[in-house]
């Protein structure tokens, strides 16, 4: 067991974790942050994507102890003061989701993309979410939602 300290969704936290516990299991089992989903545990589906210092990472491939001292953002930290982010609003309005299991990971990857590239082309959007698998939507409305969110951010 080890004590780790991290900034999780803007909140400083301290916790005792097992050395072999993944960041994903730590978030879900220990903190109850179940918005981050477990789809494959092998870094292939992207459902567990979180931001580590702003960079999208598969939390199933990372140990919780490796997150010590880092800044972590999960889907629970995307809305601010009860206000949904432009991406979240666009996913709702454009039907960028069906079953919703890939949605948190998609939104995390898209959040990182729009921060780095506020005007992505369609290809750049598709590239940014190529590591996030979706079996329901055919990605069409997800791409549309991310594009609409980029426009909304620019207009704001």
């Amino acid at each position, binding site marked *: 067991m080890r004590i780790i300290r991290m900034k999780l969704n803007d909140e400083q936290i301290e916790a005792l974790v097992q050395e072999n516990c993944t960041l994903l299991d730590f978030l*879900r*089992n220990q903190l*109850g*942050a*179940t*918005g*981050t*989903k*477990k*789809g*494959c*545990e*092998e870094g*292939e*589906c992207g*459902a567990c994507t979180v931001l580590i210092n702003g960079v999208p990472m598969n939390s199933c491939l990372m140990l919780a102890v490796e997150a010590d001292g880092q800044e972590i953002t*999960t*889907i*629970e930290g*995307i*809305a601010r003061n009860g206000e*949904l982010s432009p*991406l*979240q609003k666009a*996913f*709702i*309005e*454009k*039907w960028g*989701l*069906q*079953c*919703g*299991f*890939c*949605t*948190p990971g998609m*939104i995390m990857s898209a959040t990182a993309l729009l921060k780095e590239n506020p005007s992505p082309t369609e290809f750049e*959007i*598709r*590239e940014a*979410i*190529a*590591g*996030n*698998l*979706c*079996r*329901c*939507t*055919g*990605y*069409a*409305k*997800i*791409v549309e939602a991310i594009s609409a969110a980029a426009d909304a951010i620019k207009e704001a």
Partner: protein
Amino acid sequence: MSTERSENLKYYDGLRKIYKKPEDYEFVGKSYNRIDAEDKVTGRAKCTADIYLPGMLYGKLKRSPFAHAKIISIDTSRAEALPGVKCVITGKDFRGGKLGNPEAFKELADKESLCKDKVRFVGDEVAAVAAVDEETAIEAVELIDVVYEEFPCALDPVEAMKEDASVIHEPGTQNLSMLTTMQSGDCDKAFSEADYTDKHRYSTQMMVHAALEPHGAVATWENNEITIWTTTQGAHVSRFWIAHGLGIPQSQVRVIKPYLGGGFGGKLDVFPHELCACLMSMKTGRPVKIILDRKEVFYGTRTRHPMELEIETAFRKDGTMLAKRCRHVLDGGAYGGSGVAANVLSLIWATLPYKVANIDMMARRPYTNKPAAGAMRGYAASQVHFANEVHMDEVAEELGIDPVELRRINACVPGYEGPTGLQVTSCAFKETLDKAAEAIGWEERKNGLKRGEGIGFAGSGFVSGTGFPVLETPKYHSASTTVRLNREGYATIFTGANDIGQGSDTVMTMIVAEELGLKMDEVKIVQSDTTLTPFDSGSFGSRVTFLAGNAARRAVGDAKLSLLEVVAENWNCQPEDIVMKDHRVFKRGDSTNDISFSEAVWMYEEKHYGKSVVGVGSFAHDGDKEIYKKNRGNYAAAYSFSTGAASVEVDEETGCIDLSELVLAHDCGQPLNLRAVEGQVEGSVHMGLGFALFEECRFDETGKMLNPTFLDYRFPTALDMPRIRTITCGQPDEEGPFGAKEAGEGSTPPVAPAIVNAINRATGLKFHDLPITPEKVWRALKARKAAEAAGVQEGRNCGKP
């Protein structure tokens, strides 16, 4: 077409007078948001794996490493001795019957909750453990000692049917789980009189559903009943089989479906992990959670039936199809489950979407020592329409008829009665052909296609809501709903319809809101909980919108009529004179009689001494329960039709296929929500594309799946998808809720054959075997080049490398 509607369909006709008129629709046909969208974008939506209960134990399953073996002994003593282990069970702990699906085929139920005597595929379940944490459970599973005696395994479905094949279930059955034949007309005569006959073989591969959410369950024994939160597509059907497997009454089982992370047919059957979670909770008195890992989902749940199809057709030279013979072999895998229905379905689909009077068809579903095959989006239709639609293009070429025109000539039309008794009512198949051809620019482009360029078409017919209720029910009904109007200004719908991600909760909510003139968030939905909601068969056979939607509209209609009768009496008018809109209840064209929704409910309760305004509705199919045994009759209250059109470019150097565009024209009757329909079609294109071009489960010679991961079993990413254009066609269906028909499944089958027909046109080759990988294309092109160089005439069937 028979114009006489049955007593069953007319039963609720008394409500039609107070149903909302099309000119007053506020939601139907427009786009509005999903009711669960905010939960899903914020991470608040809780799936089964997100449930954590106090004192909860974690379960794991012990699985067979052999494809076919006798169990000599199981020793659990070392596992039981491991600190932290609270329960270990084997097959002898279950007191109930074997698992299967549906109830009508209960005698075919062939799957033990845990295997007692033998195992039939790599991954078959032999024991289960519950421990204080997942790690301990995994360790304990390793400590269970099972001694096996290996049997030879049967992996190839055709080989499995031979006399000397290893017996998987019963001796003397040729390993068949189902054998179905259908005949009509005089096939031999039609063939002898035909101008042209054509015969080819086609094959499809094993594919998996790959829903992003793995299967899992959390069970707890409290108040002398088991409550299970589980990843199911049919809570009520699960209740039946769980009770059956545990050997307890259904009244002691409560099944709840939380948010479901995709199903596609893969979560239709009941699985051993669900039974084990229940039994171990009953034994320990603590909640037990079992979530399968991704590999277990791949090799331990369900697959799409690989099929081999031999199709022989007879045509007149004007393009009229006279007869069809077909022989299907469906690789059933180790067990039956819902997979037994695939056999008969495969023959029904062979009679759509084209008219054919003379048929001679047979389907066989042998067991093999592989994971059990089951229902998957476009159930059996994806395979059958692939073969028939590729066949259709070959016939068109031979007859010198345009492929779209050949389809038009033979297209099903309203009123058509199929050779096996299908009754087609609304049908806009020709419209889908025309619109797809127009959208892809067929007439302008067909004569100017360059080498390597191809356009392909394919049609499809599908049930819009199979009438089959799965469990035996009075009058063959398969969906019931209750609606209660609350004087506090809202309504509650209690529906058994299972939202598996497609958005049925949103549809049910909309239907109630539309009829009552409420906002969507003024309708609260209680769904998929066997204690709280009325019976529903589940999400399969494209039945939810049509059947559960009808039940919902009838239930809200029933409540609305009760309410309006009281209001009308007070206002001295008829219920049909009253409109419900914008939270108001008013007499049309009379501003003096205008009250709020709450006041109207108050008025009703005043008159009836506090009695609630409650409506009930149901939907029953006009079928009979012997339909799957007689193999004759009408399978659905309506049918959907669609056409796919694909535009591809094939790189002759590498064999790589670039699918640039896919148009899908779909007759879904009256769309209830345009965005939802598009979303369903786009998802269909995704699955059809994977089916056509690369998805495939591979096995070694011992029956072990070689690629049970998302890395090795590749399905389309955002970078693989073409431009998709969805075109909705058709007119409101007479019996559909607000005229709606299905959109989620019938749109899947035309995708793969449209792509394959485009590839065949681009390459001049004839691919008959899915998937069409770049390697397969490259090898076929290379072989042709070599053959041409050798001066040999090119081969016809280049599908197999």
